[in-house]
């Protein structure tokens, strides 16, 4: 069984401790969300798991066959059209140019981009469109493990919900595994099997929340109820420094 296992992970930038004693296991077909305040080390943790940063203390075992990463910033190649940007990962996998273009076009349309956008350069896209392109580029390679760093942060609620539904579909039908970062607790409740609450200074997991209903069966009501319940949770209040009225 493919899995990602993080054991006793610590990380510092210079003398500044960013992550402390992180432990979790992500199994095939599951979604784990990491929520926490800004600057808490979420991106750092994701980069470590994806092997983009060198591990200094602790252990990471990653047996997934393939993975893809959607960064917090879109990181598109400015000299390539939207279509070529989305197709980048497919080309790297050795898919023929023609097939790559078909797949890229399909996913772009699915993600609410229009045909006329596909020829544009990134400079001519809105922030939210760039984010969708970046997300499409990661998903189109059909990775076994997907790393997502706040992929929906620049989208309006309608579009956000639509893409979340796409993702839920993918999880159900392609047995996709995701390590997901978000600021949005509601989004985490909607998408994940397990939520890790990461406090800052230093980044430590202070709470693990498990959600048993499969994503595809979760109703809005259930999500809202869970959300209200969590907002009353003392750990959440402390971590996000929420003010209660």
């Amino acid at each position, binding site marked *: 069984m493919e899995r990602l296992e993080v054991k006793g992970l610590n990380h510092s930038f210079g003398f500044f401790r960013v992550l402390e004693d992180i432990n979790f296991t992500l199994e095939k077909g599951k979604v784990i969300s990491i929520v926490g305040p800004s600057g808490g080390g979420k991106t750092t943790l994701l980069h470590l798991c*994806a092997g*983009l940063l060198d591990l200094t203390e602790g252990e990471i075992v990653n047996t997934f066959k393939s993975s*893809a*990463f959607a*960064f917090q*910033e879109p*990181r598109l*190649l*400015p*000299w*390539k059209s939207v279509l070529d940007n989305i197709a*980048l*990962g497919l*080309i*790297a*996998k050795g898919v023929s140019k023609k097939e790559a273009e078909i797949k890229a076009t399909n996913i772009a349309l699915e993600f609410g981009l229009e045909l006329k956008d596909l020829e544009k*350069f*990134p*400079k001519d896209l809105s922030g939210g469109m760039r984010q969708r392109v970046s997300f499409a*580029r990661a998903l189109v*390679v059909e990775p076994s493990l997907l790393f997502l760093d706040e992929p929906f942060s620049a989208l309006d609620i309608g579009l956000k919900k639509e893409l979340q539904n796409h993702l839920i579909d993918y999880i159900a039908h392609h047995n996709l595994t995701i390590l997901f970062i978000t600021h949005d607790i509601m989004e985490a409740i909607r998408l994940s099997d397990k939520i890790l609450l990461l406090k800052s200074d230093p980044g430590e997991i202070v709470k693990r929340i498990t959600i048993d209903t499969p994503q595809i069966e979760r109703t809005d009501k259930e999500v809202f109820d869970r959300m209200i319940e969590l907002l009353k949770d003392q750990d959440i209040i402390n971590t996000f420094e929420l003010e209660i009225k």
Partner: protein
Amino acid sequence: MKFILKILKDFPWFLWSGWGAVASIFLFIALWDVGYQLYGELVLPSPKATFGAVADFFSDEAIVSDMILTITRAMIGFVAALIFGSVLGLLAGFFATASIMSRPIVTILVGMPPIAWVVLAMIWFGMGDTSVIFTVVIASFPIVFVGAMQGTRTIEGELKEMVDSFGLSLWQKFTNLYFPHIFSYIFPAWVSGLGMSWKIVVMAELLSSSDGIGAALAVARSQLDTTVALALVVVMIGSLLFLEYIVLEPIKKEVEAWRD
């Protein structure tokens, strides 16, 4: 191939958009004519006489061969500067130590007045081709070198991380990331290097050669033939304008379409 087709397709539109430039050139010529009427033939020959002299050049074998010689020298010098500058600039860009070490040398090269190079070249190589070409190379080299080095050094770490995360092969990284980025810096540097070559070649010829347009300019000066002198200048500027605006600009527009 698709690129070339697109350049050709957009070309008429590009010409059409050049009316503003044409108008300003005509305004300039009008002012020139006013100057002629105020100061007379000896100081400033009329545009008509000058362009007449330019037309006469093309039936004058001696001048035509001078033009060809000058343009050949400029091109040889420019191509040499392009090759050396690009290759060394890329190397300097890829190695941090090399780029730190080359910075003061480049500053010296850029800061050195070209006229000083002409004098040195005359001492080292005597009068003739070598001196002229040497001066052209040494004057345009730093421009190309800096462009290539900047291009290599400014590739974003974030984009490198992104292509790494998608597992691109070395060659794919080169064609998708390194080449387009570096090219966007190096191409404008080539264009400025070319302009520099064009200017320097005349100056070098004027002082260190007995043939070419620069030398013809020296003769015109000694004979106080202002009309021919101006006509020679017009030829040089005209050919540079042609090269920059009619040949290179459309290419540049296409290559840099992705920029803001």
